């Protein structure tokens, strides 16, 4: 290489480096990436606000195409009635898809218990949905990896890959999973992932008339739901299983199963 050629190449090289550096300065991809806030979906259930209307269950079944009459659901509402003699009655008739319309508690096998108002110490409703655990046992036990946790914390099921062995259903301490009556694969609540990733609210949250159900990003300190979870007294369901649930409850009583 002669001197002219060397200088030409050096100038070209320097120009190239400068151009690349310039692009980096103008567009700042690293800063751009950092600007995307990390997301971890969390749910807040205020049991004091729940009136047991069952709108959430209905909305969920319609939105997620779970046959309405099938006795399985991604979400449900439980009723607890504690009588003056300390007995605890609980039920969730038909997942509460039609709401709680009578005072009779469903005991299963076609039997009911009528409880008069004057015998009741306290009574309340508790909506339930998938806890999207940080350490989900259902994901751990899936033999084919058909169920998995997304980066934003939601546990999903791949309907094309699930073999329907039922191990995940056995592994969930909350009884959230079931076999989809039509698709014959494992099914569960996913916070309406198809909606929340497009900026919408889950069907149950949108349908709730009292605001008992709320969803938010618990990694965002500005998020109102995250704010409540951080600053108020909330509890999680069955912490003894070590699953780190991400559905937080306000007013979860010790009678709640």
């Amino acid at each position, binding site marked *: 290489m002669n001197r002219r050629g060397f200088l030409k190449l050096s100038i070209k090289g320097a120009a190239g480096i400068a151009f690349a550096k310039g692009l980096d300065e103008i567009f700042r991809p690293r800063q751009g990436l950092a600007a995307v806030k990390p997301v971890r979906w969390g749910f807040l259930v205020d049991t004091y606000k729940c009136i047991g209307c069952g709108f959430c269950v209905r909305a969920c079944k319609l939105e997620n195409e779970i046959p309405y009459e099938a006795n399985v659901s991604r979400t449900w509402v439980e009723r607890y009635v504690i009588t003056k003699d300390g007995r605890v009655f*609980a039920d969730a008739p038909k997942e509460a898809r039609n709401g709680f319309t009578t005072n009779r508690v469903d005991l299963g096998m076609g039997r009911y218990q009528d409880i008069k108002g004057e015998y009741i110490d306290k009574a309340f409703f508790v909506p339930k949905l998938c806890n999207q655990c940080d350490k989900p046992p259902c994901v751990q036990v899936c033999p084919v990896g058909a169920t998995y946790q997304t980066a934003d914390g939601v546990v999903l099921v791949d309907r094309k890959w699930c*073999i329907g062995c039922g191990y995940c259903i056995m592994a969930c301490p909350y009884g959230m999973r079931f076999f989809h009556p039509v698709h014959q694969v494992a099914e569960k609540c996913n916070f309406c992932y198809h909606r929340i990733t497009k900026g919408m609210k889950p069907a149950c949250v949108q349908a709730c008339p009292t605001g008992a159900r709320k969803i938010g990003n618990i990694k965002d300190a500005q998020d109102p739901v995250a704010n409540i979870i951080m600053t108020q007294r909330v509890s999680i369901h069955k912490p003894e299983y070590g699953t780190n649930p991400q559905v937080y409850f306000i007013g979860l009583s010790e009678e709640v199963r």
Partner: protein
Amino acid sequence: MVLEELWTVKELFTYPNEYIYWSIQIVMYPFMTGLVAGAFVLSSLYHLFGIKQLKEIARFSLVFSFALLIVAPLPLLLHLQQPLRNYFVYMTPHFTSAIAAFGVVIFVYGAIVASEIWFLYRKHLVEGSVKLKQQLNKNLAEKIRYGVYTILTLGVFDISERTLRQDAKAIKILAGVGVPVACFLHGYAGFIFGSVKANALWMTPLMPVIFIMSAIVSGVALCMLTYIITMEVKKFRAARKTPFPIHQTREEIKGVEIDVVKKTARYLLVFLIFSISLELLDLIFRGYTAVKSWDILRRVIYERDFLDIFILQYTLGNLFPFILLLIPRLTIRRAIPALFLVLLGVFMMRWNVVIGGQSFSLTFSGYMNYRLPIIPHSLETFKEGLFGALLIGALPFILFWIFSKILPVFDMEESH
């Protein structure tokens, strides 16, 4: 209607999605793998430790183990909601799951048993192939037999003293490797249940060990029972002097038979003691520690499932056969009911684990009752019903019958 509503009746407060998802086929699965493992361990007692008394039953139980092994995955297949996707378990195993190991374990174990059988019967296969090759004017049955023998030799026709000695060595090594693998195959079935932290009845580290011990008990019992039945058939044939090739007289068979049964029964009793001790330890420990779930477990074990657990499993299935086999001067007539009861006991143990574990709710304040579908109205009620289970139970015997047409499973002479 949800499929599981066909056999689940819910009582008191249960979560809406709770049903008995694992039904009769999942009872059959550990029962079948248990028989596989037990039959193999029995054969290994001879091949590995050289316990001469078990020589007769050893070769027989090895082949029976293989027949059972082929059937063992079928209950799982029948139970899958998406049976056509079964190979996903081998294609994309997700190894944090106990079930994912299934493919690896069953193929490794299958390979071990198949090659052990091959080494054991190689001489016979070669001799059969060579003999039929020389024979002229073969009829169709002989042609098929010749083809099968020749294929099964895998092209190795060397049966010199030296190679046969090497075969014997290979059998010993395979039997040695096979025992831990057989225990793993079944212990891991116990792990599948024992590791489910959501299920208060299943979750115990003792589960795999309990499963292995009861597996050996059931496998030995089934091998003894099948051995007795085939020997009785032989005796019957010897008495009638049928044209089948019979090597012994009726009295000779009888003498060998009771001898084998007596000696094997001793091993059965030892494993039965281990099995019962572990199960009782588990029960006592649960009652003594009495954690949160004990309240409902106590009601399930001592009240609702009392018949299944204490009458059918412990009394009829464990205590009775234990006494029957322990009384001196064991006879075949006494051994047969005892062995049937042992099998019943182990089956009920599987039933009480699988169905019993799902008969109470995760709420700890409700129950689920199982109603086994008997009349098959649909494919589902067949698969998950009585007849599906009976089909699985019958298949190993059919397979074993086919194997016994090819391999001299009961021949008394020969070395090894």
